[in-house]
């Protein structure tokens, strides 16, 4: 690679990295100058919202992985036209503005939604519950995992699996020792995206689950409430920095875990 090309690449990379990181830096700078991050960290309400956010986003991730991995595998291994169509359709929740996603969820599972009446008949009402928070997060974040896992499975040559079968490996053993190491980076990357998106979910949660401290008010909803309050931007950025800090810690940990687990093959 010539020196000129190398410099051009470095400039391009640095430009985007700066574009992504500078606003985050601005947020931290603003929180430190106007806000009071320490006060937010000392408040029980902040911890309630943070705990709810981390717990619900993690449950969403676990569900997305448990159900999304088989889905992505089946879609990738199926030759049917319908499978490719389904794979495209499953990306659609990504297109919806979050508020519309919330209305969509209500239209299906809400009290007057088309499944809501059936659910209500068996005494199950989802809206305004913590389960609704998880469902909203799952709806907007699972496509990230499925899309990434699907790309991974599609890229893993099925002939490796075929060879493993002819060598007498069981289906499970084949998946674990042949397929999984091949697709691991895609699964791990998808999981990180999925979890991060669930953690930041706002619009769909607000509409479908409401906003009640301790029950449905996740960190993004608490930030929205702070923004509307007397403390205004200062309070909102302080809370945002708390969320950012925890997300950074957890993402770093997640990267470590996936990197070490990926190294084991």
């Amino acid at each position, binding site marked *: 690679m010539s020196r000129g090309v190398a410099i051009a690449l470095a400039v391009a990379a640095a430009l985007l990295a700066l574009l992504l990181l500078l606003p985050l830096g601005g947020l931290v700078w603003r929180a430190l100058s106007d806000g009071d991050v320490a006060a937010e960290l000392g408040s029980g309400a902040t911890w309630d919202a943070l705990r709810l956010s981390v717990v619900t986003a993690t449950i969403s991730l676990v569900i997305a992985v448990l159900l999304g991995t088989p889905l992505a595998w089946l879609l990738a291994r199926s030759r049917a036209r319908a499978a490719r169509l389904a794979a495209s359709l499953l990306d659609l929740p990504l297109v919806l503005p979050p508020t519309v996603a919330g*209305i969509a969820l*209500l239209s299906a599972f*809400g*009290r*007057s939604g088309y499944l809501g009446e059936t659910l209500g008949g068996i005494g199950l009402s989802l*809206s*305004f519950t913590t389960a609704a928070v998880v469902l909203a997060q799952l709806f907007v974040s699972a496509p990230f995992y499925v899309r990434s896992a699907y790309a991974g499975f599609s890229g893993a040559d099925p002939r490796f699996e075929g060879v493993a079968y002819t060598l007498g490996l069981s289906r499970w053993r084949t998946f674990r020792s042949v397929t999984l190491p091949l697709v691991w980076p895609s699964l791990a990357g998808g999981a990180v995206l999925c979890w991060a998106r669930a953690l930041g979910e706002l619009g769909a949660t*607000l*509409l479908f689950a*409401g*906003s*009640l*401290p301790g029950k*449905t*008010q996740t960190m993004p*909803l608490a930030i*929205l*409430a*702070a*923004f*509307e*309050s*007397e403390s*205004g*931007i200062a309070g909102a950025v302080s809370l945002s920095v708390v969320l950012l800090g925890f997300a950074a810690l957890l993402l770093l940990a997640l990267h470590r875990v996936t990197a070490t687990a990926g190294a084991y093959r």
Partner: protein
Amino acid sequence: MRAACRLSPSRRLRAPLPALAVLGVLALLLGGCGDGDREPTVTIAAASSLRHVLPDIVAGFERAYPGVEVELRFAGSQVLASQIAEGADDDLFISANPLQAARLLDAGLAARPTVVTANVLVVAVPEAAPRRSLRDLALADVRIAVGAPSVPVGLLSRIALAWVEQQQPETAEALRDKIATEDPSVRIVLSRLELGEADAAFVYASDVAVSDGLRAILLPPQTPPNEYVAVLIEGAEPAAGELLAWLLSPNAQAIFGLYGFLPSVAGVQAR
């Protein structure tokens, strides 16, 4: 738009041809901008709850002052105040939250605070539902939506419930237990009724006045109304002052009344 107009063309002579072409396209897109003898345009940044009533009032103003053009933009008071504090180019700000107007006054960015109207908190229920009183609601299996305590509508809901508690402690307690969500804006509180997810919502009388199929249950009269404070933004067009005065005119006040708002004199100053 105004900021874009300040693009200085002074270096254009040395600019290469493609840059000139880009400037030319920009000039076309911005056409008319910087035109000296245009009518003065007054921009009002107004709280979302004024979305229905304000265009009617402004239409009257524009008839009375044919030389002036008025532009309206609506958002939550907090959002608008933040935008103005960050340099948004508005002339008049009408806040549904007096605190947000006070913020701009304290920062020296605004002047002439004027209460132009007020809104009474009520409990909205679907007209078709059989519930006609707070007691009915307290006894029924219902979900209630209120505003978050950080927004005026939520704060007033708490004050109203405290007044209910004075007279009927059990009713107030039952109502509090039925609160399913504390929303960040009155618009979202109202949407809970529209989407059928809640059976009652603490909103303003003006929201019920422009809605289809909603009825208002009254709250204790001691509950204070929510005041709308208008302020002139620093560097406002002179016509913005005329518009502010117009908001208090009998014509404007009558229109406020039609849309479920309180007249500013009887409802607010007299309190």
